[in-house]
């Protein structure tokens, strides 16, 4: 009896509190909120350290890129200067050989870059077997992929200058096979300096403090933020930047023999076109993005890509209507049998590549607040549309090539994309961003060159509309 009464007693009390609820006062949540905020102080410190390291890494990367680019541009410009003077001297040599029988100019071929000088007399020697077979009037030109040397009589003072300059370029290339592996470190002498701070190092504790605000208001503000979730958006984007040459630097000065009269060596003329080491590019496009996970997004779109590169050429193509068109070596190597060429004085060419690019990128949002920081990586399918060669002086007609089987350009090529996006949210449905990025060609654009993979760098601007 007593036992059953006890059970009943307990059951009654248990039932009385079964679904009982009582509102605590608002101060409880405020206190919890403050406590959680203070607890986040430690996490915030870790985050600050992470962002500091990220910023430092970005600065280092930017410095490395800037240094490499400067070194690359300087080296290419030196080569271009040397090559231009070399071509000029070759022309002079031709005129001299036409009148002087005693002088013999022999050049080295087959990528043999080691110069050999003849100290005995007035004639330089060569490894080329062809040189021995011809008489003193023969002129051969340098076609190697590396810097080659023209060796001429030592008493020819003008040509000696060329030799010395060319040798300097070669020496630099031999001495620095990579990007400054043996480079001089200007800070080397400071490495052993002992940095003693005068004061005592103190650990700084950073505590994020939020203003006290009624929880109901906080809930309202959160509600406003979460009204429009950034799950789907459309954007327009534009970017501008540069790229290194589609023709490798050591192949930028291509040349070959051309004769206006068949079976006559006397009328052979050296022709070449040299690409500038870097070009300019811009693109405009639209894209869509969707959030796949809280921090992962997928972006894709379509954009028009325009790449402009400068050339110097000393020959032109002759059309069926006898009009002279601007042309570069890349075309002639692909269509040598189809084009009639004629030598000209050196002239400047603008080469414009137009492409339609379809990029697909995955993005990881490091920071996703009013200010956003996103890392992007992906691939782009580039569809070649047209290349137009234009004589800057306007004397020659433009030459245009579109995609196709007989085009020197591949119709499709692929590029790897990487970049960051710094964004700022405006209102609830707009976000603007700047996006520095890199584009590395995975497949060559030119059919004739299989090892040219240009790198393109640009700074983009995006305007994003966020769908509700």
């Amino acid at each position, binding site marked *: 009896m*007593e036992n059953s*009464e*006890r059970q009943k*007693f*307990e059951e*009654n*009390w*248990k*039932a*009385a*509190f079964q*679904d*009982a*609820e*009582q*509102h*605590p*006062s*608002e*101060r*409880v*949540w405020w*206190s*919890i*909120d403050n*406590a*959680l905020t203070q*607890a*986040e102080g430690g*996490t915030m410190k870790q985050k600050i350290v992470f962002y500091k390291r990220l910023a430092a890494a970005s600065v280092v990367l930017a410095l490395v890129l800037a240094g490499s680019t400067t070194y690359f541009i300087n080296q290419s410009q030196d080569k271009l200067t040397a090559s231009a003077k070399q071509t000029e001297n070759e022309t002079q040599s031709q005129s001299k050989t036409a009148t002087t029988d005693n002088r013999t100019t022999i050049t080295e071929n087959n990528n043999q870059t080691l110069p050999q000088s003849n100290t005995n007399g007035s004639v330089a020697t060569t490894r080329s077997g062809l040189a021995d077979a011809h008489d003193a009037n023969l002129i051969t030109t340098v076609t190697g992929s590396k810097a080659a040397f023209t060796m001429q009589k030592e008493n020819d003072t003008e040509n000696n200058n060329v030799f010395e300059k060319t040798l300097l370029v070669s020496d630099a290339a031999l001495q620095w096979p990579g990007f400054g592996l043996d480079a001089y470190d200007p800070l080397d002498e400071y490495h052993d300096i002992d940095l003693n701070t005068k004061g005592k190092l103190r650990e700084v504790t950073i505590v994020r403090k939020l203003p006290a605000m009624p*929880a*109901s208001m*906080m*809930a309202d503000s*959160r*509600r406003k933020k*979460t009204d429009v979730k950034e799950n789907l958006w459309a954007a327009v984007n534009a970017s501008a930047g540069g790229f290194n040459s589609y023709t490798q630097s050591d192949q930028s000065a291509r040349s070959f023999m051309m004769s206006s009269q068949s079976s006559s060596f006397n009328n052979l003329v050296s022709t070449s076109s040299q690409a500038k080491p870097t070009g300019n590019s811009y693109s405009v496009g639209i894209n869509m993005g969707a959030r796949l996970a*809280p921090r992962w997004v997928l972006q894709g779109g379509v954009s028009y890509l325009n790449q402009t590169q400068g050339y110097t050429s000393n020959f032109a193509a002759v059309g069926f209507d006898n009009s002279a068109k601007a042309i570069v070596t890349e075309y002639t190597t692909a269509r040598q049998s189809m084009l009639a060429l004629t030598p000209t004085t050196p002239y400047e060419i603008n080469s414009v590549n137009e492409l339609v690019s379809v990029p697909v990128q995955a993005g990881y949002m490091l920071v996703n607040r009013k200010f956003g920081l996103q890392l992007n990586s992906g691939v782009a399918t580039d569809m070649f549309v047209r290349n137009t060669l234009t004589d800057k002086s306007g004397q020659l007609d433009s030459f245009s090539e579109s995609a196709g089987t007989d085009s020197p350009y591949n119709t499709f090529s692929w590029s790897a994309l990487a970049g960051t996006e710094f964004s700022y949210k405006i209102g609830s449905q707009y976000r603007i961003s700047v996006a520095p990025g890199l584009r590395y060609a995975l497949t060559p654009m030119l059919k004739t060159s299989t090892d040219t993979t240009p790198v393109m760098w640009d700074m983009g601007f995006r305007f994003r509309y966020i769908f509700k």
Partner: protein
Amino acid sequence: MAERFILSDQELIKGCVKGERASQEALYSRYCRKMMVICQRYAKSTLEAEDILQEGFIKVFAAIETFRGEAQLNTWITRIMINTALNHQRQKLYLLPMVDVANTNLHETEEVSLADFNLAELIAMIQSLPDGARVVFNLFAIEGYNHKEIAAMLDISEGTSKSQYSRAKSLLKSKLENVSVYGKFGEAKI
């Protein structure tokens, strides 16, 4: 602080694990009222109950990563609240150790229905109990622990637990009778 979005417990847990304040607030809003009653039962006053509630929820958010879903979230939070409340009471119990009290004869009394009382009155009755008796009563009668488990939890003997419970029960019965008899005339003092 009304809950504006209906999210499942799992979604709230995920948000809390990430440290999202909105999820933490939503979780608090969902369970704070129920937990407040538990805290009030163990505490001597509403102020103390809110302190326990605050401490308990901070523990919940700190340990939410360890929640594996083996039990219901409600049960898991309740257990944390009870442990927090016991820690609060242990300090008092250490100062005023529980000892065996004289067995109270549970004389036959007229059955009084708890349905006649509102929640505030019932809580007030429990809060009026001595600390030791209140804790044991909560653990035994409402939470459902047996005396052996209570003895282990509070580091007391099983006999002490039983005697404390008897005392609590006796006191509550007399309070219930007093209120039911004199309450109508407004003279009852809980």
